[in-house]
């Protein structure tokens, strides 16, 4: 039965991987976001609905979910933008194990970040003078273009290669590794290039650009991964990888 005009028909994923969609009817409101809808359901219809959010103003990335098959920040997604009919499907992020309802287990996402050596390794101590890195240098400009990632997982959920290749480190981990590869202060350059190489690393990227299309911060993991491809190729030709 179709929803009355001032109502929205929302299908929300319930349960784990073997779960299913449950339909709710939610009042339509002006400037309503998808997060507003999920919160309304949890407060008025079913208190057992599990979901994540924190800042609700597009800064933390916690509220990322799959809306009509596309990964988005639900706090920054207006219902009228994604719902042209009266129906909307809300599901947990793809490519991650489901804990319950709209909550995924992000461990694999962050484990891969670590496997890509996505941590800064210092080359000097507090006793050394400050590193001088001109912000308009090519290296720093490359870092700045990719540094704003907040680890929301939208790119990871959007990447088809992540779905096809269980070990693939994914766009976010590789993007972070790139910012460190171009960080002139970092001391783990060769280990990091080794970490991002191979069938599970940057060489598995096929430039679908789904990550770049979907990143809510308008970053381009595709560009960062292309940079890693160049860096590893150069290292191979020099015999350094």
């Amino acid at each position: 039965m179709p929803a009355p005009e001032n109502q929205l028909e929302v299908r929300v994923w319930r349960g784990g991987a073997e779960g299913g969609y449950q339909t709710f009817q939610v009042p339509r409101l002006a400037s309503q976001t998808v997060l507003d809808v999920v919160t309304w359901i949890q407060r008025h219809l079913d208190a057992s609905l599990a979901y994540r959010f924190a800042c609700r103003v597009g800064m933390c990335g916690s509220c990322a979910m799959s809306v009509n098959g596309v990964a988005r920040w639900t706090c920054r997604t207006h219902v009228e933008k994604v719902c042209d009919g009266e129906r909307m499907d809300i599901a947990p992020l793809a490519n991650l194990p489901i804990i319950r309802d709209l909550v995924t287990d992000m461990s694999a996402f962050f484990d891969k970040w670590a496997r890509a050596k996505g941590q800064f390794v210092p080359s000097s101590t507090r006793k050394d003078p400050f590193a001088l890195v001109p912000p308009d240098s090519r290296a720093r400009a490359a870092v700045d273009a990719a540094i704003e990632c907040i680890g929301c997982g939208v790119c990871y959920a959007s990447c088809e290669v992540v779905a096809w290749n269980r070990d693939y480190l994914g766009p976010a981990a590789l993007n972070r590794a790139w910012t460190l590869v171009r960080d002139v202060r970092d001391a783990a350059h060769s280990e990091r290039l080794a970490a991002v190489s191979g069938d599970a690393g940057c060489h598995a990227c096929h430039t679908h650009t789904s990550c770049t299309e979907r990143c809510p911060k308008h970053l381009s993991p595709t560009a960062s991964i292309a940079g890693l491809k160049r860096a590893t190729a150069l290292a191979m030709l020099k015999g350094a990888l």
Partner: protein
Amino acid sequence: MSTRSEARAWLAQRLSAAVLAVCVLVHLVTLIVAVRHGLSAEAILGRTRGSVAWTAFYSVFVVAVAVHAPLGLRVVAAEWLGWRGIVANFAWLVAGIALLGLGARAVLAVAL
């Protein structure tokens, strides 16, 4: 395969691609021109028989494609058929050698 070998396989794929970019462009132009005069053995062999240049060209072409095609198929099979591991990699190596053999035979056929 170690990540080092996998990375080298990727590089070989891209290097052979660069070589093939030249070979394929020449090949596309050649066959567009050749087909104007009708496709016959005389037309093809008249061009290639005894020609050092064409033999060299097709030899390079065959080697590049024998590297490029199996490496490409290897990735497709791994991602879409789940074929991974030592046996799969060995099978693609064998496929590459077989393709090289067939290609060499074809080059000999039109060159000699």
